[in-house]
């Protein structure tokens, strides 16, 4: 067993801030959706909108960081992606129960397995931007209608925003569970806090 430095300070800051903002967004969003009464509709509404701006800002900063540091390469893959993903999926479905070693070793140059790479890339490039865009279109609905948008889009926009939120919850559940599949149950989470991860030699 050895320790390697996987997550830079900014990456850890970004991850946990995003975790916080998304948690607040989900909590307040579901209250505005009418599922429960926690902090009051008006408070939930205000905090949700502020957090939306927060998430947008954070994503811009993160994009800037990834592009300027070149770290975005961590999310790119080479070769037969399907085959690589299948290897990883097979590990989670079968290998993990036989205590087989991880199919892809973590190191400073490559800290994400192919399944993570594609999932996080999709989340950051498609899922979250889409959710943010729909959120902002919803927020600026009146202004956009004044500019010529069809007012009938209100319902589909709201429904897609809701659906994406539910899918995000499902993602968070699986994401948190996956952190327990490292060297030890908590080694992945520890790494995301300290930057250092224990990995098999």
């Amino acid at each position, binding site marked *: 067993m050895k320790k390697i430095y996987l997550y830079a300070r900014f990456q850890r800051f970004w991850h946990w801030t995003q975790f916080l903002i998304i948690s607040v967004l989900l909590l307040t969003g579901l209250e505005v959706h009418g599922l429960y009464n926690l902090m009051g*509709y008006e408070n939930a509404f205000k905090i949700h909108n502020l957090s939306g701006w927060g998430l947008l800002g954070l994503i811009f900063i993160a994009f800037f960081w990834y592009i300027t540091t070149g770290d975005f390469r961590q999310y790119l893959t080479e070769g037969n992606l399907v085959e690589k993903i299948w290897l990883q999926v097979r590990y989670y479905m079968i290998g993990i129960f036989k205590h087989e070693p991880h199919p892809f070793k973590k190191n400073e140059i490559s800290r994400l397995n192919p399944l993570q790479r594609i999932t996080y890339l999709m989340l950051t490039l498609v899922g979250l931007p889409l959710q943010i865009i729909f959120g902002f279109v919803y927020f600026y609905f009146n202004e956009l209608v004044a500019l010529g948008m069809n007012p009938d889009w209100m319902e589909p926009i709201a429904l897609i925003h809701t659906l994406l939120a539910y899918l995000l919850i499902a993602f968070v559940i699986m994401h948190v569970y996956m952190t327990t599949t490292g060297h030890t149950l908590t080694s992945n989470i520890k790494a995301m806090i300290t930057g250092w991860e224990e990995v098999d030699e």
Partner: protein
Amino acid sequence: MKKLLLSGIIFSSLAFALPAKLTAEPFHRKIDSLLISTTDHKKFEILQQDFKSGPEVTKACLSCHTEASKQLHRTRHWTWDVPMKKGSRLGKKNVVNNFCISVEGNESRCTSCHIGYDWKDKNFNFKNENNVDCLACHDLTGTYKKLPAGAGHPAYFDTVFEKKFFPKVDLAFVAQRVGRPDRHNCGICHFEGGGADAVKHGDLDNSLLKPDRELDVHMAIGKNELNMTCADCHKTEGHQVPGSRYTPEAHDTHGFDYPLKDNNPATCSSCHGLKPHKKLKKLNDHIGRVACQTCHIPFIAKQRPTKMWWDWSKAGKFDKNGKEITIKDSSGAILYVSKKGEFRWAKNVAPEYKWFNGEMNYTTFKSTINDKKVVSVNHPDGNPNDLDSRIWPFKVHRGKQPYDPILKRFVKPIVYGPKGSGAYWSDFNWDKSIRKGMQNAGLEYSGKYAFVETEMYWPISHMVSPKEESLGCKECHARNGRLQNLSGFYLMGRDTNPFVEYFGLLAISGSLIGVIVHSIIRYFTVKKLKKAGGI
């Protein structure tokens, strides 16, 4: 020293710059009449006479205000007749209502609220200038009252009507003390519409004579209150009072009407503009779809119960001795009278909500009605797809009233009149009173009558609450909120799509179950491997 002086000046100018609380006091009647008028009517010789009747007073008024009656003759307060765009004729004279049903045939009783004298029947001369009643609206003494059944005349000698005493009105005293209408002038008819205080509108009753700010933030009386009167919003020019219920402005897109009037000056936006919410700007997004009144008048009939139900079909019951019955509840509200039937009242009640674009559809005495369901005597026109429509609050008055089940039309019974005239309140015979009423109006009657349930919509604009008490988001943005019954549009917090909800539930519960099952298998396989010494 110089510095001290300078800071003193700065400080005192700051004190002047501090915003003073807005009140309407400066615009209203002062004790010193010189500040508002160049005329003292007490000094006019022509008003110092022993007037025998209302028209005599009017004649005196017209000797100076030469064109006044001609101007009044053009108002709907005089004609009770409002020609509509689509050709129908509305106005008090023509419409069906589900209170006393119809003016025609009952004139001498109803016209106690007409701004004229002598409208007893359909032969009334609408051209007579002396028959305009100036005092009803311009009496500032509060002593001028029209008799309930005097065809618009006040008591010229001490009179008792239905056990109420009406003292002789001193016409000269009143005529010498006239001025711009105050709230009691409007209120004597508009607060007591339907025959008594608070009956008809729900948002207009005598509690508005001296309201506190919780009851009506604009009309509230007291120190630092706005103290606005009716005419401050219903800004009248040439006796034409804006803000009629027959031609409402459901969506004022013009905004401010002050200092320069551009359309209806009685709308909220005329003073508050089109973006009135300064702190929570997002609230301004509602303005295109929700009337100000909807959130800012959370309850109507705040202090006095208003009539919600009038069932004429129950009228005509007597006690064992054949005497008329009156049943009251503990608060004194009338629940039953033999003449009128059954009543229900409600106090501090939430209005009902409908999309409204300003067009009110009226059922007339000539319309064919569908008696299989509740008949709308009037109903607001509008829907969510019409961008002129907004969600408005209404008092809905329901009840049962007579109709012709063969011709499927409403009927006009004569209710008020002496014994033997056929009037229902004297003779208690529906067939006779309807026959007489229809004959008088020149309308067809099959000879059969029955009772049908009706509803009537009264748009709400008064009894505006202080902003702290306006509706919170959750009153509407929630399941089973105030707008639960309005369909055809998506409302955040109220509406869900079953597909989205079930798919979301499936995704979340699916991943949860998957994770749990996976971890259990992991736990046991690893345990087994450990036992076997595999790890």
